[in-house]
């Protein structure tokens, strides 16, 4: 087969919700899904700290036991959950740039060296003005020991690791805050995957 050049990326533009965001796609859980319910919320902000009210956040995660619903995750000894794909989408609110995801805390998944990674959510951020998707991860503040050993976090310059760790909201241990600063001061880490 002849090699082919990649089709170039383009922005999702301001009207992506016509094609990409259905109702309730930011709720990944159904009643029968196993695992600890968590809520992730935050804002998407631009280089001046202004809200980005037309951003799309896609989430990809393992289930509560640490298995992905995907043919390459062949660990049949770890159960999959009926009704849990591990995929969701959240659009930010136009006026405030806020987003909200209701899901379960993912279990740990192995890294290529055979060690366990810290629990994390994979996020893809897109918006008008973003000509390519941005890949990042959300880690949990109550997993400090696992975070310290995480293969991917250790590839991030130490002074920037905190940008990938959500904060716990006062009063509710199951709510995590994760602001996504796209540019400038406080810019979070984005990955070349």
């Amino acid at each position: 087969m002849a090699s082919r050049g990649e089709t170039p990326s383009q922005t999702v533009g301001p009207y992506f919700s016509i094609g990409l965001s259905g109702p309730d796609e930011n709720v990944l859980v159904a009643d029968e899904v196993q695992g600890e319910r968590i809520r992730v919320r935050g804002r998407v902000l631009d280089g001046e700290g202004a809200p980005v009210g037309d951003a799309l956040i896609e989430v990809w995660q393992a289930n509560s036991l640490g298995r992905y619903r995907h043919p390459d995750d062949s660990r049949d000894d770890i159960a999959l959950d009926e009704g849990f794909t591990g995929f969701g989408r959240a659009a930010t609110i136009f006026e405030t740039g806020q987003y909200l995801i209701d899901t379960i805390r993912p279990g740990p998944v192995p890294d290529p060296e055979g060690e366990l990674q810290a629990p994390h959510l994979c996020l893809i951020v897109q918006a008008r003005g973003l000509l390519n998707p941005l890949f990042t991860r959300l880690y949990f503040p109550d997993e400090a020991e696992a975070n310290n050993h995480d293969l991917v976090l250790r590839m991030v310059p130490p002074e920037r690791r905190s940008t990938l760790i959500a904060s716990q909201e006062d009063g509710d241990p199951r709510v995590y805050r994760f602001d996504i600063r796209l540019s400038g001061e406080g810019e979070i880490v984005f990955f070349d995957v």
Partner: protein
Amino acid sequence: MSDPVVRPIAPKAHGDHPPFLYGDYRSTVLRAPQKDLVRIVQTLSETTGPGPAWSEVSAEDADLTTNAGTGGMALGPRIIVTGSVLDQNGEPVPGTLVEIWQANAAGRYAHWSDSESSAPLDPNFLGMGQTVTDAQGVYRFTTIRPGPYPWRNHPNAWRPSHIHFSLMGPALGSRLVTQMYFEGDPMLGLDPIFNAVPSHSRGRMIAAYDHDVTEENWATGHRWDIVIRGRMATPTDPEVG
């Protein structure tokens, strides 16, 4: 517990894609990251992805001229858009979700924030479609040719006719959102979003008129292949015990 084999996908060919910051497209200025991306190893989190589990579509949504469900037909030149989804090795990618959205023939989106437009809505047109590639990696939509529309990027700015395409692909890094343009459109060279792509790869976003796809007394045909990142030709086995 056996560790799953991690089958990396090809690295992104950054030189074929637009930069994050492209000044002529003003919205990039405050939104483009200023720091370099951090290169990471692909773990199971990156070599898997939502594509295989997210492929439920209804057959009606491959036809945007009727999927509003009103019983009426969308206005505008009816077109068929079809092609193959391939990976960088030229291998077809079956079973992948393809989602599209577009303006109507008058150049208006059925979206609340396009309310300043002076162009009319079409009650028989939603402007959204979905399908899944078949066993040969082929997708096919019936729709109408979208109109160009003005935007506020610069004086007398117009977006050329285009259809937004979103593909999931086999892995997280296969994710592609792009726009399909039409062969021969004189407005392409004036469009900063099109021009943000390096000149050598811009042509990969342009659908070709294809008379073999055209259906007599029904619709003109346009062919457009899409290439996403797939598995490396020679998978690298992880050294795990």
